[in-house]
């Protein structure tokens, strides 16, 4: 009988009894490696569903990783961990604390060998916390609850519900976005995107950058500037009637809400380089933009002709602003 076999035989009792103290030659392996051959020793382990179920028993090699243990334990419980074949399961593995019915926090180092887990105080009683793991396209994630709307699901998986719809299997009918789904573990959904094409972005879906690019192609000198987290479109060289204005061109700045274009544009700032006989009509407090002084002009859309994201854009708002210089309201 060789040394290796002797060690294995000496561990028979320990291998069978889940709560048997660790043999000395295992505990002394703490900072080094297991004695030769011991890694192949299969020991009995317990596993149950977290937080509590009937404990089932199975065997694992001391050299197995905790991920191997988790997979084998899940098989013993009759339910594989998810995602299948992943090295980073969404389900969680815990082990019971010594002399207690309490469970440890989820074990994060699943690549750690079983024997290291035991040497560092872990027990041979494990529990698997099965979570509500679902898949959308190729992404796996854990649903926050078993009743979520498609909109919530898409958002939580990083899909913009304005662009994507949720489908099941090979269905061609999308789920209604705001009707909660009863989610089951392991379910697979597909997020399908809309296809947007066109010479220009559809009104109501464009960005301010789209609109700036468009007005620039029409010969307007416009650029986006930002100050303290607020974005403005600066429109330079705007032709204005002179007289009555003191100069033929003006520079204006239009504050852009983050919610543009649904949150519309309103009013504007006028760089104080022009005036009408020394004053500026509808002038409100001034601000400094890039070291230049701009007066806020209280120039709003008329009642009944509010900003409409489906038809208005930067170009139409500049036209609205020009009405101020021409002394006319929006038409």
């Amino acid at each position, binding site marked *: 009988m060789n040394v290796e076999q002797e060690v294995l035989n000496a561990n028979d009792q320990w291998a069978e009894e889940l709560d048997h103290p660790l043999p000395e030659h295992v505990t002394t392996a703490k900072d080094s490696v297991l004695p030769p051959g011991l890694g192949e020793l299969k020991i009995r382990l317990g596993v149950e569903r977290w937080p509590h179920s009937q404990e089932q028993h199975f065997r694992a090699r001391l050299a197995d990783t905790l991920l191997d243990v988790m997979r084998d334990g899940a098989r013993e419980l009759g339910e594989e961990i998810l995602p299948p074949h992943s090295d980073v399961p969404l389900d969680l593995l815990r082990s019971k604390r010594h002399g207690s019915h309490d469970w440890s926090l989820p074990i994060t180092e699943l690549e750690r060998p079983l024997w290291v887990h035991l040497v560092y105080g872990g027990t041979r009683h494990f529990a698997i916390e099965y979570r509500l793991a679902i898949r959308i396209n190729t992404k796996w994630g854990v649903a926050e609850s078993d009743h979520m709307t498609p909109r919530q699901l898409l958002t939580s998986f990083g899909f913009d519900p304005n662009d994507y719809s949720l489908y099941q299997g090979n269905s061609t009918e*999308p789920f209604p976005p705001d009707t909660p789904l009863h989610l089951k573990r392991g379910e697979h959904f597909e997020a399908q*995107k809309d*296809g*947007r094409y066109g010479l220009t972005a559809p009104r109501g879906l464009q960005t301010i950058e789209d609109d700036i690019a468009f007005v620039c192609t029409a010969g307007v000198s416009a650029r986006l500037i930002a100050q303290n987290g607020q974005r403005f479109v600066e429109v330079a060289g705007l032709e204005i009637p002179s007289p009555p204005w003191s100069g033929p061109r003006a520079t204006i700045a239009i504050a852009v809400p983050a919610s543009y274009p649904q949150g519309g544009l309103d009013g504007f700032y006028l760089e104080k380089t022009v005036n009408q006989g020394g004053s500026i009509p509808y002038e409100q407090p001034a601000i400094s933009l890039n070291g230049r002084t701009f007066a806020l002009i209280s120039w709003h859309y008329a009642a009944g002709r509010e900003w409409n994201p489906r038809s208005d854009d930067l170009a139409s708002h500049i036209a609205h602003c020009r009405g101020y210089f021409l002394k006319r309201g929006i038409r």
Partner: protein
Amino acid sequence: MNLRIAELHWEIVRRLVSLSFSSALKFPPETGCILLLSRNDHPQAQTLLVTDVLPPSDGDFTDQETGAITFTSRYLRKALILVREQGLAGFLTVHTHPGADRQVGFSPYDDRNDPSLMENLHDLQPDGVFGSVVLGKDSACARLWSADKPSYLNELIIVGEQLKFMNLNGRAYAVPPSASDIFDRSLALTGAGALARISRARIGIIGLSGTGMLMAELLMRAGAGELLLFEFDPADRTNLGRVLHLRASDADSATNKALRMAQVIAESGLGAKVTVVPGGDIRDPAVAAELRSCDLLIGCVDRDWPRLILSEVAYQYLIPLIDLGTEIGAANGQLQSLDARVSFVGPGRPCLFCSRVIKQERIRLEGYAPEEQDRVLAMGYSKDIRLKTPAVMVISVF
């Protein structure tokens, strides 16, 4: 890579997008559809094939206006499910830019949105082929996407009563290309561009006997770019009276007739590249696979089974087939008939079954081994398919 489409499908596309180019509308809307694709993955002729047009139903487009169109996820999904169910290669979205005429291109808005759509489609169907086409009135631009990068398609080949070609780089062809001056004197017959097309085409000739040798000769002298020859029969003395270029020495040495023709073409100095397909029998699937590399097939076989194979390749891969047949009918030593036939086979045209050129019974008999053929013929229900009728060069020249 080229895109092939049957003329009848192309007509459906043009009809679906016609509103975008209507002169009656001041602000015509963008329109579109989806093209379902299969693939010819022959290494020398990688081509996408439009298998069907998926027209939009009510509600399949939103935000449809002069400058924009949105394909709903539901419409794209219908296409994706068809791809999965029918084992297709993928699909192309098609949309229009109404103001574009002989020049069209993807807009910055298209460029910004296509990558995320294509990434989504590849996420859902990792091995799928997905891309987009933008149409002007007389122009088109098409691209496929992989790994966030577009690759542009070369040419749209519309296969129907004629072969029509459309540039897929966004610009309409300015003038038809011209052929080498050797072939100038044929222009009056063929029209501008046709000979240049032949000079760039890979033409398969299947069967190199009386008719096939003549076709090879004619195509060589019309400036064909490349001839792919399929023939498995060696020359014998019965061929000498009707097969062009065959010499007695070829018959004596049982030279493959295709090899003899290749020799003639090489010696002609007319520039045609020639390839003799090893084996040459298109009833062998590996040999038949080479048919997919051709732009045009010329069938000069005298059996129904190979004619069926050619016909199937023509429809499946959108490669036009010109099938030729000659027959001298004789009975009791008396001449009964002289027939010559040219069938143009391809999408939108009747197949060789429909036009009764080939028959199920003959295909079945041809598939039997000789002993089984004898047994079946002995039963008296089938007509003998073995060639015993006379053949002369004159009728091939017809």
